[in-house]
């Protein structure tokens, strides 16, 4: 028991590691604030593209979505982070992470928004058009708001996954929370920083998990 406390919950070590962890935490927050809006915007664009009449565009979107859904995100990230510099394209760690997340998460958000748009009755679209709104106005003012409301649980669920996924950035040495924890671990020869990082993730994300759990139960119960 004593050994457990000394190795996992060592307050002296935590005190030493705290500044590093805090810096890592803010990097994770910053990363989240960049990749989530990017992913949502990209996903919305993907979903809108899948509603156009042109078969070529729709087909391209399906290929794009399936392609990036089949790739494990870490594979995509490594490919971008290690491969692109060979083409003299250097995005830096943050840029590489942002690009990889944009490609990956926009396919997932895209699928969610597409399902949402399909759930809005066709009559809504026709009624809006008949009042003189253009196709784009109809989408923006009538269809997308209803579509979004219909898929809020899925959007939150995916956002939770995206926030958790930011921990992958540690692999390409972006100093976010997990990277900071591992760095602190190797400086202090003690696992406390890793446990602390886990607790920070838990404290930040647990409310989302609870919220989702409620949504899911209600969703299936209404089935």
């Amino acid at each position, binding site marked *: 028991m004593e050994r457990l406390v000394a190795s996992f919950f060592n307050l002296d070590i935590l005190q030493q590691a705290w500044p590093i962890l805090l810096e890592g935490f803010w990097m994770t927050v910053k990363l989240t604030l960049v990749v989530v809006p990017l992913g949502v915007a990209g996903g919305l664009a993907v979903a809108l593209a899948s509603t156009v009449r042109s078969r070529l565009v729709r087909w391209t979107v399906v290929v794009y979505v399936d392609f990036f859904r089949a790739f*494990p995100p870490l594979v995509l990230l490594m490919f971008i982070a290690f491969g692109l510099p060979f083409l003299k394209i250097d995005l830096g760690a943050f840029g590489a992470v942002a690009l990889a997340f944009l490609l990956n998460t926009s396919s997932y958000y895209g699928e969610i928004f597409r399902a949402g748009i399909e759930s809005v009755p066709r009559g809504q679209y026709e009624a809006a058009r008949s009042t003189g709104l253009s196709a784009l106005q109809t989408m923006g003012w009538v269809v997308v708001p209803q579509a979004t409301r219909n898929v809020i649980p899925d959007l939150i669920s995916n956002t939770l996954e995206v926030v958790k996924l930011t921990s992958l950035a540690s692999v390409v040495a972006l100093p976010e929370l997990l990277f900071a924890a591992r760095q602190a671990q190797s400086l202090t020869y003690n696992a406390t920083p890793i446990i602390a990082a886990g607790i920070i993730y838990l404290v930040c994300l647990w409310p989302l998990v609870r919220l989702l759990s409620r949504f899911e139960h209600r969703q299936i119960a209404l*089935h």
Partner: protein
Amino acid sequence: MFERLADTFFNWQIMGQYFPKIVEGFFLTIELALAVVVAGIATGLLLAIVRAFRIGVVNFLIVAAVDVLRALPPLVIIIMFYFALPTVGVRMSAFVATWLALALVLAAFAEEIFWAGILAVPRGQWEAARSTGLSFLQTLRFVVLPQAVRITIPPLTNRTIAITKGTALGAVVAVGEILYQAQSAYSFSYNPSPLTLGAIAYLVLFLPVVYLGRWVETRFAWKR
């Protein structure tokens, strides 16, 4: 420009050289993925069944464990198992650490999905089955679970696919699966072609799975 692109990402010579390694990783990824899916779904189903008994303390513990496993990033769990647990004398191989972490995460998600499915079966089904003389367990086994499992198939399939792709995280703790093989080949040859090869291997493995997921979604349409 085109030549340089080909030479950098599709260098046949380097690809040929490391092809056997990637194939080796391919089979290890399949092995790891199957082990995760079987252990994760079985544990999740078991936990959901235990939860159906509605024993206060037990259910509280299940919910707490599930919440923790859903809130922590899988990579953090793998790193805890592989780098933190040995400091208190619990040692496991990188393969076991990755397998255990992903199986637990899948079990947590599966438990939630199965439990929601059990809740979705109308109360009357329970009452009718019990009144015909079936025991609690018989009711669960022959009446409730068959109905519950059917509606859980689409969300469960999607979640399973997403977590199975997490096998690539094993590369971080040096499990010799596809990504690890590709990455170490890349650092030996200082050429990204092995990464291309690894990416192709993942597509070969997961594109059919993504299509399976799409098919399941339409086949067992889970209407909101």
